[in-house]
């Protein structure tokens, strides 16, 4: 460890610091000596006083006072010396910091020389060229859509969105306006009112208990369909659109012709329809077997 080829030399400021420290040591030693002398004079004064020699006791105390003053002086000198050494040591550190900063600056400058503004510009230009080239290739290969294409795509998307919104709006029914007369009509029949009442309560329920509008908007068409399934065969005034009728009448589903063309939709037509469905079943079975 530390077996370097050349022995590190002591610098001039090292020697200066050493001289200061040596002086400090001398003062320290002197202080120690003074301290013992002080103690000794104190003891002498006590002894003399005990022996009744007041004059010599006073002398010892005067000497002691003088030594104390000396001690105070050396204290001051010590502080001065310490300050001096600290200043030197601190300045040395400052010098080292300066050297470090200088070195850092030199390195920074060298690095800056390596990356001049012209070089950076050239590199950026080259990059831009490369990007342009890439774009060209993309267009040639057709991987990239032109701006017009993009605009068309955007337009189409907007159209679809509009349609969807419109469809949603048309689906949104205004049930409460038309439903009451239906209910009155049905109310003439004997067995239905209970069902309608139930349906009514069902129709109201989701609107009140479930505040979410999407839920109700979904429910309402369904409800209407259910109402049709109950009422449409018996009422003449109420003519729902065929699109709504299709999924509704399960009884008439097999023979839609009977259900829609029936001039007087009464219970007989209904039973007839169900009967005809029953008849049609074997036919279907025949078809299947063929």
């Amino acid at each position: 460890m530390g077996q370097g080829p050349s022995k590190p030399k002591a610098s001039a400021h090292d020697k200066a610091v050493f001289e200061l420290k040596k002086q400090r040591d001398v003062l320290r030693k002197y202080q120690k000596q003074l301290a013992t002398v002080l103690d000794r004079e104190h003891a002498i004064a006590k002894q003399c006083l005990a022996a009744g020699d007041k004059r010599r006791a006073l002398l010892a105390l005067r000497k002691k006072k003088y030594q104390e003053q000396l001690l105070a002086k050396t204290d001051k000198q010590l502080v001065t010396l310490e300050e001096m050494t600290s200043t030197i040591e601190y300045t040395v550190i400052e010098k080292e910091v300066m050297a470090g900063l200088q070195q850092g600056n030199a390195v920074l400058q060298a690095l800056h020389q390596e990356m001049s503004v012209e070089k950076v510009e050239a590199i950026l230009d080259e990059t831009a060229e490369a990007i342009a080239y890439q774009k060209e290739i993309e267009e040639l290969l057709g991987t990239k859509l032109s701006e017009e294409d993009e605009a068309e795509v955007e337009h189409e998307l907007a159209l679809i969105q509009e349609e969807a919104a419109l469809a949603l709006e048309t689906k949104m029914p205004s049930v409460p306006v038309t439903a009451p007369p239906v209910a009155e009509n049905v109310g003439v029949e004997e067995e239905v009112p209970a069902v309608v009442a139930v349906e009514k309560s069902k129709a109201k329920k989701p609107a009140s208990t479930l505040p979410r509008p999407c839920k109700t908007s979904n429910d309402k068409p369904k409800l209407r369909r259910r109402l049709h399934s109950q009422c449409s065969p018996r009422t003449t005034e109420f003519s729902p659109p065929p699109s709504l009728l299709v999924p509704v009448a399960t009884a008439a589903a097999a023979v839609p012709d009977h259900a829609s063309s029936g001039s007087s939709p009464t219970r007989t037509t209904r039973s007839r329809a169900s009967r005809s469905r029953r008849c049609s079943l074997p036919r279907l079975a025949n078809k299947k077997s063929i």
Partner: protein
Amino acid sequence: MSTNYAPPVPFEFPPIYSFPPFFTLQPHAPSRDKQVTAWVDLIRAYCTHHRVYRLSLNASILDLPLFRNAALNRSVSRDMLHTLLTALVKADLAEWTSKSKTHVFVYWKSLSEWSDTLVAWAKDNGFANTVVTGYEVRLGDYVTDQEFYAMDEAVFAKVVAHLDHQRRIVMINPSSNVDELGFKIIG
């Protein structure tokens, strides 16, 4: 042998110290070897405890409780003392100060151990790479709690010379007066 250091607790002698034949050199060779080994260990432990750096082959050495058991009224003879110190030197735990073989430096820590201690102190306390004086390191206000405080001057000079030889210090002021030694401990 003189030391300003006052250990906080008294030294605890081993049981063999209370064994009277321990103070007489044994004629039988194997027993004598064992006895001398035990003495070397004891001297080292005692010197470590009391921070004794020097032992002198004069009358005052027998004032040390180490070589005189007052309770048993036994003490080591001059010849036996010489034998023991020779064994100590042989075990690298001591060194004759001169060819007259009347004094030994007791190395309860070897010179390289002392060197390591000094360097470690300098590093731990911010004295590395700063100028220090021999007086500062040996008797300064910052080392009163250190093991090497008030170290024997001659041993201290040897440690510094050892450090200098190993290039672990920069000598600024070589001096025969240890207090005026000036050097920088390389951290």
